[in-house]
């Protein structure tokens, strides 16, 4: 019977984590439009806050553009400030 491998060895056997890919970089987005409700909506959570870059995988450049777009959309009443 082979001896059960220790936890340390098991971790080493696991695959390396998948690299995050920015969904806007994939489409080569140069500008994120504040009028585009369907694309902005998924990047806000239930309470209306902007989702963290850590969870969505957006690059910093596009996160800044997204923030601008979401803030404009909020001003125009398309997105909620707070639920």
């Amino acid at each position, binding site marked *: 019977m082979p001896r059960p491998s220790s936890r340390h060895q098991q971790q080493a056997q696991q695959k390396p984590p998948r690299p995050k890919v920015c969904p806007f970089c994939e489409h080569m987005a140069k*500008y994120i*439009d504040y009028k*585009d*409700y369907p694309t902005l909506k998924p990047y806000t959570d239930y309470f209306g806050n902007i989702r963290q870059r850590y969870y969505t995988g957006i690059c910093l450049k596009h996160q800044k553009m997204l923030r601008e777009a979401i803030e*404009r959309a909020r001003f125009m*009443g*398309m997105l*909620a*400030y707070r639920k």
Partner: protein
Amino acid sequence: MPTLVPTSEENAIYELCLLYPDNLSQKEEAQLLKEVEGLFDEAGGKQMVKDLWGKRGLAYPIKKHAEGNFAVLYYEIDPQKIKEINHQLLILPNVLRHLIVKPPKNYEVVKYSEHYEKWLKERKTVSETKAKEEEKVLQQKVVERARRQAKRAEEVKKEEQAAKPAVQEAELTEKLEKLISDEDIGL
């Protein structure tokens, strides 16, 4: 969709998004739009694209209005005159919100009124298909559980059947031994 490029270097392209209340009569609506267009015309602006979105729900009440109409206008105008137009728009009655934005270079106009309706329809179908898939998965789970229970029941029955004769044998041997060991019976 057309890409917007200013005809001369002095002028720039601006995008105006207007939000006005839902309960205006058609006359008032037309008048409001005329006034807004008049502001730009006075300043020597040239309209490029006009996109009326129609009625839409608001994410939060603005001046106690739960719904509003959106209008998006693209103008080519002298950048120095935009400030005054912005101020004039603030004064106009029946305007809930307005936003003047300079779109990026070579901006391709997208009519989001059509986009939004398409998205609404797609979302419905997507949610329906998701619900169907979830139901399928649930049904499969139920079927598997039933199978497992049936298997278990069979196994239990077999075990009982296997266990029963052994008990009977033990009882039999006990009885036999009793009989044999009984001294009253003369053999």
